[in-house]
């Protein structure tokens, strides 16, 4: 840690002046998972479509082909739409076979711009599950894109590829330098550098504050599901966003990982302190000082008498930071089926083990959930894997209503313009009225499973099913 402290103090000055944005990105873009570092999926945008038809093309501005499975979520920034997918819609015959792919499309018309492909790790399912593609949602800041590949590498690439006529460095020896290839800037190999052994898939979506980019390593079990092959590898790392050098790491979990570590960190100012919040593989959530990695608090999301895997859960959804509190539900790998879950509001101004002291409320009527909450106008919306969407009072945890989608849900809600959008595994997207009264406005089918969360940008709603990306806007396409 001593080495890192020196670098961290340099960052301090820059970060101190940075202010955190509100839960609406404010720019009309949606530049990261959750839109903002607090990961609260709400937007102030108006005029987004609540009805469309992908067969007749009503309100469909454009559609683009993806691979056969797309677990990354869409981000939109600088006129570019980015998404992680696989290589089953082969765009470059020189890069064949099963690969993770980050694809970039033009926001205005869906034109394919460039891609960065990643061969699968030879270890296969243990670290890099076949055909699951790039599962990280990128983060865009200026003209730089940060994301984690299926090989456990944190990448920084150029938003505009080589189309800006420049090969940005330090990496300048790319083998592929065409207009449809990625301009690579730097990379940080978490397996090589910090010994991460990602379980099944590296999927962390980066978050940035000041000069530091934070990701989870996805360090976890090996295929035996008993052993942690790399108990000395960290759960969370902070890397300098300009140089790609490690600044701090934390491994509070050590060998207590229940399974994998697929939750993604959030950043926010809580009680006046900038914190990075990370839900980890032992089912605990931890808060850290952003610049130093000093652990501030930790909270166990499982009842003490719970037993993995029957009743004890991991944390896969993302913690949401809202008005000094952290909201998170626990659950399990969809492969494990349905089960009981727990949802918490945590007072993250507390310090130490705050499992008791920091519990504002606990909601146990949720089933296992891998989704992330949206909080708007004092109401919290969150689905569970069994397909129930829950609407609660964010302050008290009091339930207002639940809605059964009749399908498994991997996605999260987006709350925008008085509407709640949610997609499910049957490919249905339900649009509900936001508020204490339950009301279904519309339901549309997208043709195949919707695992991703809709994204608003510049009056258009972006959404993907397994193998297609849609831009939806009122008045677009056939009427």
């Amino acid at each position, binding site marked *: 840690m001593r080495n890192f402290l020196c670098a961290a103090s340099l960052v301090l000055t820059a970060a101190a002046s940075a202010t955190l944005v509100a839960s609406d990105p404010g720019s009309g873009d949606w530049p990261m998972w959750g839109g903002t570092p607090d990961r609260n999926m709400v937007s102030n945008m108006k005029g987004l479509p609540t009805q469309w038809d992908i067969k007749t093309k009503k309100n469909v501005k454009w559609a683009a082909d993806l691979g056969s499975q797309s677990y990354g979520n869409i981000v939109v920034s600088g006129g570019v739409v980015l998404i992680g997918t696989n290589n089953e819609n082969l765009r470059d015959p020189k890069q064949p076979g099963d690969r993770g792919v980050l694809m970039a499309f033009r926001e205005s018309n869906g034109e394919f711009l460039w891609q960065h492909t990643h061969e699968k790790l030879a*270890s296969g399912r243990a670290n890099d599950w076949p*055909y699951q593609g790039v599962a990280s949602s990128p983060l865009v800041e200026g003209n730089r894109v940060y994301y984690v590949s299926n090989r456990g590498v944190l990448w920084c690439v150029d938003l505009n590829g080589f189309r800006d006529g420049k090969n940005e460095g330090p990496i300048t020896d790319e083998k592929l330098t065409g207009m449809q290839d990625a301009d690579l800037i730097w990379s940080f190999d978490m397996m090589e550098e910090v010994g991460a052994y990602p379980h099944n898939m590296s999927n962390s979506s980066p978050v940035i504050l000041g000069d530091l980019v934070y990701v989870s390593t996805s360090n976890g079990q090996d295929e035996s599901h008993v052993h*942690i092959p790399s108990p000395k590898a960290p759960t969370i790392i902070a890397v300098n966003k300009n140089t790609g050098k490690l600044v701090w790491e934390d491994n509070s979990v050590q060998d207590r990982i229940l399974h994998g570590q697929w939750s993604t960190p959030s950043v926010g100012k809580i009680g006046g302190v900038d914190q990075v919040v990370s839900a980890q593989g032992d089912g605990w959530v931890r808060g850290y000082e952003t610049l130093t990695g000093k652990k501030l608090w930790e909270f166990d999301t499982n009842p003490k008498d719970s037993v993995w*895997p029957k009743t004890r859960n991991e944390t896969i959804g993302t913690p949401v930071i809202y008005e000094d509190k952290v909201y998170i539900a626990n659950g*399990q790998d969809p492969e494990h*089926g349905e*089960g009981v879950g727990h949802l918490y509001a945590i007072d993250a101004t507390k310090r130490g083990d705050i499992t008791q002291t920091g519990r504002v409320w606990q909601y146990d009527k949720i*089933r296992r959930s891998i989704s992330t909450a949206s909080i708007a106008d004092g109401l919290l919306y969150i689905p569970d894997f069994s397909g129930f969407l829950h609407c609660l009072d964010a302050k008290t945890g009091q339930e207002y209503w639940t809605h059964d989608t009749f399908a498994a849900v991997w996605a999260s809600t987006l709350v925008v313009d008085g509407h709640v959008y949610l997609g499910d595994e049957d490919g249905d997207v339900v649009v509900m009225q936001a508020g204490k009264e339950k009301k279904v406005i519309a339901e549309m089918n997208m043709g195949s499973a919707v695992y991703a969360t809709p994204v608003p940008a510049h009056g258009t709603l972006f959404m993907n099913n397994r*193998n297609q990306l849609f831009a939806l806007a009122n008045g677009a396409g056939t009427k």
Partner: protein
Amino acid sequence: MHMRKYILAAAVIAMIGAITSAQGPSQGGRRVALGDWPEARGPNGDGVSKETGLVEKWALNGQNFLWRAPYGGRSAPIVMGNRVYVQNPAGRGPELQERVMALDADSGKVVWEYKFNVFQSDVPPHRIAWASPAADTDTGNIYALSAGAQVIALSRDGKLLWDRSIGEEYSAFTTHGGRTMSPIVDGNLVIVTAAISNWGTAANRSHRFVALDKRTGEIVYLSNPGGRPYDTAYAAPMIATINGMRLLIAGLGDGGIHAIKPQTGEKVWSFVAAKRAINTGVVVKGTSVIVSHGDENLDTNELGMIAAIDGSQTGDIKTTKWAKKGDQFGFSSPVIDGARVYEIENGSRLKAYDLETGRELWHQPLGTLQKAPLVLADGKLYVGTENGKFFIVRPSADRGEVLSEVALPVSTNSVQQAEGTPEPILAGAAVSRGRVFFVSSDAVYAIGPRTPKAVTGNAVDQPAEVGEGAPTYLQVSPTELVLKPGQTAKLHARLFDAKGRFLREDPAAVWSLQGLTGTVDAGNLTVAAQPLEQAGLIKATAGGLSGEARARVVHPLPWTETFDTYADAAVPPDWVNAVAGKFSVVTLDGQKVLQKAPDNTIFKRVRAFIGPADWSNYTFDADVRSNTKRRQMADIGITAQRYSLVLYGNSEELKLEPWTPEVQRTVTVKFPWKADTWYHLKLRVENLPDGKVRARGKAWPTAEAEPAQWAIDKTDPIGNQKGAPGFIADAEFGAYFDNLKLTANQP
């Protein structure tokens, strides 16, 4: 001297083999009484019952409810006469075993249970007993494939007839996924499949069919119709006759659906449907074979497919009669109903298609998660969902009418991996004598009348197969032998016709040995008596046809191996999974040692076996050493009698483990150790007079003196009474073994 017993037992087994194998393949027809459900997918392996007058509605503890027996599972029941047989986990924690049990069909009361250990397997406790048992309709005997890849033959009274450890003999690959296939009985064969590695020319890991003589457990054939497996798989195989040719058809781990001749294992055709394993069974009507999967197709970015192929073809089939892509049929097998086919996709939507054209006719949502296959009986579909509901649906041309939808109780004693939600149903139903039986995470359920419905006649009545014409295939059986120096064995050269039907045994076959020292005359094999390891082939030729069996001869005890006589890159010829596992002799610091090569593929963690599966009461000594990289070290250990003594590098522990994922059976002690340094492992296993097994282990730096005390001393109440010596290594960055010493226990 305990070894003497082993020799005696081996001689008896050899004699039994000589007597029974001479009878050759069964010449009888196949007959299944109406009312019996002898395999997971019913009398014809297609999920269809011919019974009528079955229930339309039932209620828990109410209308048409017969019984609930508290034995949860994840595989389908089978029924023979008044007995329901299920395969499930028994006990908990340190005494957890796998089990086949017979329940009284009228009451659900236990008639008998046969428990067996899971060992040297990666299947976790909540995923064992994935396969269903299968009944032999000739004898009523019951066959099971365990999570640990043992094939077990039981009499109808639950007495062990024989067992055979495919896991140790061929290094069957059992994964965390737990997927294992239900056996199928055909004539005198019981046929299973698994992803296995072997030695010599069969050392590659492939998803193979293994056919055993149902009377003796002798290996009759190993068949390898497909390619490299992506995963383990669990589609139920079925046998169908297409254009007069009997075919055993099953999807395997290579994404292909393969048809072989069931009595010989000869490949007839393959259709590669997906880039991942196939877990759904096929159904057949005429020449149409309905295949399905839930993963990547070869040619589109849509997931999943249901398709019809022409099963009268031979070779590699590349075309379909029709194919519908975009729905994931990953787990639940289809059924055919006249001109329609029904199947449930992963999200639990029941779909109906026109059998001729593939046109989708209707769909009916049943829940959100689906694993269990459909069963069609009396014009109704019987099926449970992973959401914990059991449905009875009446399908018609334009819709599926839900007649009954019963939510099971909230799970409180699951053998699966969740409690607190309605008991999930993962396997298919069985129909027998007016009743329907199914298994949930917590229980076996029976619905229907108190008194079994009287049924007469046969569900299946196929005449005996008679071979005719010229022989086209020569089978040498038993085809895989594990022998000790000087041992004899009787082999048979059997001729089959082009349709895979038995013609005759050929006493005039010409026999020869290849790579083996010994003699063979008229099928009588005697291997050399010198105490050396060897492996090779026994060939027979007759009338222009040739066939072969394979034998490996294991070094007797005491046995030391320093690798000094091996060239670099070599590996002892009879070691199982040593080639696929990338074990080979190298020179390290001037010494010949056995290396587990650095490997970041799935073979970074492997088991290899170096002896027969029926050794007992022996001690294994070895030196081991690990490389280090990326903050990580290897896990490296030795195995004796199904107990492994393993040095774990990353957790710095020494463990004695019979079954790695069931951690409550494992004994762990802290053991700080370093990379790039030799350590000595010593493992002694002995059978105690009271039936328990004592396993003791210790480790120390090779450069230091042996500590007097054992570090681990475990007396196992459910002990493994026998087992092969072997290695286990999980070594992404490489590890080494040297100075092996195997000795019979001294008192």
